[in-house]
């Protein structure tokens, strides 16, 4: 796999103790884009240090393919090997591994594995119990099976991009990250674990033709139903709540640079509490704001008035004061806020320090649930962040799959591994 959408499912399986072997090739064009995608660990960070040696305070400190920060966060807990699938001996070696594997995951362009003779049909002849998961933009079957997609493509296609943002005439705001590079990984982990139960109980494999676009459709159900019932085209609502008389309901500017707080008022009592927190200004006592329906009807004015108050407030102080009054309020937290400040993430141990063999120990984002008896550990079996390119060739090929050291040397010589 490569990029984000493929490695996500195996990242989760590794967290639950699966032995995940990440197969890569080091030649230009084959190497995972994320390995040379900024940001990078600072040049001075070494295996013995890492974050303790300090951040770089600049981007683009590109060293080599083993210093990518996002790659490091995306592939922890995995073993890493190099394997040239353009070489017949490379394909043979993959076949040898597949014979003993429970599952194979790939997200190459549709048809690439078939071109190598490594498609699902072929591999399941070698291992009928194999679970083969293939993630593509549209899905391998259907009329767009060869269409190409990144997360944003599938988001635009499935309707998610349209849903995000302020009402027209604003254009869609889209997504500042690719949920559809995550969700197929979540579903992939879920379906593979369902297939593993069957494999264990009944000895059968599975072919999972995962569609990024379909994982997007799953999130648009309410819009799609509303259209079928009313013929009404979907529109955008910004941060407002169209389906209940909740107002104010949005992000409001606070003191400081690009600082915001989200506030959701769900009842008259909460509105009264908010008004009291503002010092019960005259405008808040006006009749038109007295009822939920009235606040909803005059939401533009309500938001403008509320902003006159919030813009003078410190965002965290305001959040604490509103929470003390039983109001759902949350700071729009940026990365620094979440990493340095968020006491909840700290207390729950969300960030997990993991070593990397070249750039040292860095915090890795963890799994968002605690399982009492079989906890997820993002370091997996390796106890490491992401592997260096080909870091585990010896361990995987020699110790797991039993190739001799002489065979390995020969394969290295022939540019197979």
């Amino acid at each position: 796999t490569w990029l984000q959408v493929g490695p996500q499912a195996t990242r989760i399986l590794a967290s639950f103790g699966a032995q995940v072997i990440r197969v890569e090739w080091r030649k230009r064009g084959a190497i995972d884009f994320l390995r040379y995608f900024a940001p990078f660990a600072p040049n001075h960070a070494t295996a013995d240090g890492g974050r303790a040696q300090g951040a770089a305070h600049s981007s683009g400190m590109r060293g080599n393919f083993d210093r990518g920060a996002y790659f490091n966060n995306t592939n922890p807990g995995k073993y890493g090997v190099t394997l040239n699938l353009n070489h017949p001996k490379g394909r043979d070696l993959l076949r040898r591994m597949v014979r003993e594997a429970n599952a194979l995951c790939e997200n190459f362009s549709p048809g690439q594995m078939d071109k190598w003779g490594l498609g699902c049909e072929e591999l399941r002849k070698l291992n009928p119990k194999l679970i083969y998961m293939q993630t593509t933009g549209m899905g391998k079957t259907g009329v767009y099976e060869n269409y190409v997609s990144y997360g944003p493509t599938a988001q635009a296609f499935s309707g998610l991009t349209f849903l995000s943002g302020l009402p027209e005439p604003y254009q869609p705001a889209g997504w500042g990250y690719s949920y559809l590079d995550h969700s197929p990984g979540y579903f992939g982990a879920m379906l593979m674990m369902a297939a593993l139960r069957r494999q264990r109980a009944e000895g059968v494999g599975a072919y999972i033709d995962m569609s990024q676009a379909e994982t997007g459709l799953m999130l648009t159900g309410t819009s799609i139903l509303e259209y079928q019932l009313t013929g009404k085209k979907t529109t955008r609502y910004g941060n407002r709540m169209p389906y209940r008389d909740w107002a104010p309901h949005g992000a409001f500017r606070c003191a400081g640079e690009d600082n915001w707080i989200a506030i959701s008022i769900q009842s008259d009592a909460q509105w009264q509490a908010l008004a009291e927190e503002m010092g019960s200004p005259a405008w808040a006592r006006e009749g038109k704001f007295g009822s939920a329906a009235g606040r909803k009807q005059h939401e533009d004015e309500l938001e403008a008035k509320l902003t006159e108050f919030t813009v003078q407030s410190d965002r965290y102080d305001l959040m604490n004061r509103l929470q003390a009054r039983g109001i759902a309020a949350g700071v729009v937290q940026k990365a620094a806020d979440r990493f340095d400040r968020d006491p909840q993430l700290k207390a729950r141990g969300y960030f997990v320090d993991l070593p990397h063999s070249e750039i040292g120990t860095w915090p890795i984002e963890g799994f968002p649930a605690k399982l009492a008896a079989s906890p997820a550990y993002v370091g997996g079996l390796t106890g490491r962040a992401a592997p260096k390119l080909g870091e585990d060739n010896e361990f995987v090929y020699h110790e797991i799959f039993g190739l001799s050291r002489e065979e390995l040397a020969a394969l290295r010589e022939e540019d197979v591994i």
Partner: protein
Amino acid sequence: MTTDGNLRTSLNNVVVVEVGDQMGDYAALLLAGLGAEVIKLEPPEGSPSRSIGPFASPTPDREQSVFFWRYNLNKKSVILDVDNPAASGALGRILGKADILLMAGEYFTVARRLERCRSIAGGNRGLITCAITPFGLDGPYRELKATDLTQMALGGIMAVCGYDPDKDNNYDTPPIAPAMWHSYHIGGEYAAISMMAALNFRDVTGEGQLIDVSVHEAVNTCTEIAIPTYIYNGETVLRQTARHAMPAVTQMRLSVSADNVYMLASLSPFEREERAFVQLLDQIGMEHVLGSPEYAELEKQDRRAALTYRNDLIEQAVASLSAEEIFRRAQPLGLAWSPVRRPEENLEDRHFAARGSFAEIYHSELGRSLRYPGTVATDGQAPHMHYNRRAPRLGEHTEAVLEWAGVTRDEIASMRRHGVV
């Protein structure tokens, strides 16, 4: 492709008891799509998610919530007020036959119910209990009030979604929560993964366990380079219109087609995409200097100007044709372009029809069928997930389920007198 590995029945012997609010609806829906029997225990006035719109009726009606319809397919509804001590006997018998107890809601409510169910269901050592709460069952924020919107704020997604800043990187538009109920989608997907992991663990050990899902942490997992950019480089990413948040504002933008549809049309930094774009321009007869020595020189002298020239060409190419036409031409060349569709436009798409992406669900009360998004994957022939029953009416399965659990008719009558069922 063989179909022996289809997963639509893979949870056929799994009974899931669902209690709580909209944070848990989606997680249980996903398990139901793989064949689990999901029993929703509702208070006499109905689950909170029945009061979320839109409604199929002109005024809010707990049987007409389209939100509830969407997230509760294939489930059974039982009226049983789990907070009422008079329900203990029935609850105990249901939990005795359950594999998973899924609870969702505010910390106080869930913690209280957990305590109660633990004493009632103590004999079922294989029971997996999954609690979905806004912040998790411990930690200093666990009691905070939250809605979907505030979770998207605190969890970091809003800070990376929105519109471009001005040239000085100042924003006059707010951060945006990119879709409604999305924090519950993320939390639900992680809850489903966790329950699946716990089922695997139980298959091997016979032991159930407690799963503590934090929606806050689930939202946090999604911001991609925001966290690494800060940790490794000390920089904050900037939100930008319809593209990834990055430390600097990037040049790409949405284009508008001849038929006035926004089009996601951009080039990734791969040579093959630039070559494909040149092919597209040649195909539609648009003049350009891409690939010429003149352009190579411009790239060397002024990379930003070269990018602007290329992006202008994209914009002109998109403006010259309808969105569907550009889509049909660009994709076979290997360009990952797409129109920005409204969700409902996919109802008519041939691709999704061929894959069976939508499940046709008959609503007897409406006398018609509605199409629901119904799977994320196929086995090469058929969808791996399967939905065939509309969301239940409140209490539609009360008697059938209670009898299945071994509650006698007399007991049911007694509970009815106490207002429990």
